[in-house]
């Protein structure tokens, strides 16, 4: 024997048929999906498509900058900002209000008292828990734009309808996020409070909420970032804000105004992202 003996075994590559099956299914899915818009997408890459594209893009520049329009844009942007803040606040308030009911027995009844609960109470509590989770699910599933149509019908055109729409839809989203957060906290403090005689609600408020509060605030800020984008489009159904101006500009083929409005959205969204990010970092540093 000469030289050093190496005893390294490289694992043989196995052909995983399961993997190929998944890939094939994925390929079929993709081809089928593209078939829905194939004609239009391919037409973008023809000569005519390109010429059309060029003339369309040209209309965007320069963006409209006359004073009257800018003040409209400014007002609309402020309105969008206000809708997003108000909507997030309503959502957070509703979600907090529902959080106790949407928290499982496993959390609130920590300490094994479930077995000692009377059957009718068990049923009542389960009923409340399931129906509040179902309510949150319903609020979340109906898109904000459908809520907006509903509230425009109920309270009339304008930013109030948009605020309500964002608030109701996001109450469902935040409710779910809050509930998931609170389910994952250590049970110790809740159990200790229950053992020393606190009521269920007190144990929940002082044993569970403080542990989760910074995470709850962080989630609310994150939703604010999502909501500023949503608020920008609610105007399409008459719920106020910058979306209404975009709708008008598109309907009237005013591309240079569209450019101004798009820039306004860019500024607004980035400003909110920066502010929310700053607040979240402050929050992390504090807790």
């Amino acid at each position, binding site marked *: 024997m000469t030289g050093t003996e190496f005893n390294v075994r490289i694992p043989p590559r196995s052909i995983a048929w399961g993997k190929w099956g998944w890939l094939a299914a994925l390929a079929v899915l993709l081809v089928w999906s593209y078939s829905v818009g194939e004609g239009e997408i391919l037409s973008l890459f023809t000569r005519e498509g390109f010429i059309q594209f060029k003339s369309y893009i040209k209309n965007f520049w320069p963006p409209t900058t006359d004073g009257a329009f800018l003040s409209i844009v400014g007002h609309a942007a402020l309105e969008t900002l206000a809708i997003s803040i108000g909507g997030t606040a309503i959502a957070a308030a509703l979600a907090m209000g529902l959080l106790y009911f949407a928290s499982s027995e496993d959390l609130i009844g920590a300490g094994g008292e479930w077995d000692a609960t009377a059957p009718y109470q068990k049923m009542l509590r389960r009923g409340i828990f399931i129906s509040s989770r179902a309510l949150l699910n319903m609020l979340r599933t109906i898109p904000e*734009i459908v809520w907006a149509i509903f509230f425009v019908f109920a309270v009339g055109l304008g930013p*109030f309808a948009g605020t309500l729409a964002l608030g109701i839809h996001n109450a469902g989203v935040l409710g779910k996020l809050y509930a998931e957060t609170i389910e994952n906290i250590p049970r110790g403090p809740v159990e200790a409070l229950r053992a020393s005689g606190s009521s269920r609600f007190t144990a929940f408020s002082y044993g569970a909420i403080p542990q989760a509060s910074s995470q709850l605030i962080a989630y609310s800020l994150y939703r604010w970032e999502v909501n500023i984008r949503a608020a920008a489009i609610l105007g399409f159904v008459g719920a106020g804000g910058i979306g209404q101006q975009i709708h008008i500009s598109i309907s009237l083929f005013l591309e240079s105004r569209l450019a101004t409005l798009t820039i306004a959205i860019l500024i607004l969204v980035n400003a909110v*992202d920066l502010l929310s990010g700053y607040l979240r970092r402050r929050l992390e540093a504090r807790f």
Partner: protein
Amino acid sequence: MNLPSASPPTRPPISAGQFTITAGIAAAIVSAFKFTEFNPLLLAAPGSLKAMAEFALGFFPPDLSFTFLATTLKPAFETIQLATAGTALAILLGFPLSLMATSTFHLHGSLFEGDPIVSKSQKFLFATPYWISRLMLNTMRSIPELIWALLFVRMAGLGPAAGILGIGVAYAGILGKVFAEIMEGADTRPALALRATGATRPQAVLYGILPASFRTLLSYTLYRWECGMRAAAILGFVGAGGLGQQIEISMRMFEHHRTATLIIELFLLVALSDAISSHLRKKFT
């Protein structure tokens, strides 16, 4: 004997910064309500209560007749197609951009250890792809998919193509940013080992970073596909087809029984994609 006194821990005082932030948030919320003419009484007014009740009751019972259900099949499939094709386009656009937007590949970090020292201007030059791709990704994700879709409607016509392009561009911005963040957080040791054996930086990324991050990237993409389903449904409201368009039409025609059916279908679709994506994510990670 000197026992430590058993006084309960004192609350730290509220700092000026904390106070300012809390007051600022409160002021922002109050002025937002003022600005949007917030008036809960409007909701509770007997007239609007009655209107809302009528409106809500109008949804019941959902129209479950076979003929109507059959007509909703195509839009439901269209929503799936929009979401899938849109997400695929987003990967196509977003992944290459994310490679440029990963700071550890272009700016600093352990992958640069042992590199010859370059001048400031050269460093600046090497960083340009990073800044350009970051700017592009930011613009793509700051504009909501609905507005992207509207911009594309003029080019691709009213229909699913505008929706695919809208989701594709907006989600490419999100995927690109998140992909870059995932790769920035990846373990660099395999890549460093490759560098030590003489691999170039792109090779080290390709064989050292990508395989390790692949599952996380895939899992996040699946999550985005799920979000795409919701987005695709909403895009219908500007004419991109799918369930959203049907919901919009039925609401405009005051056919609320049908709206209810369509919303239920949307719920089922989202729940289904939720289940599929979380099943696949568990399988892959």
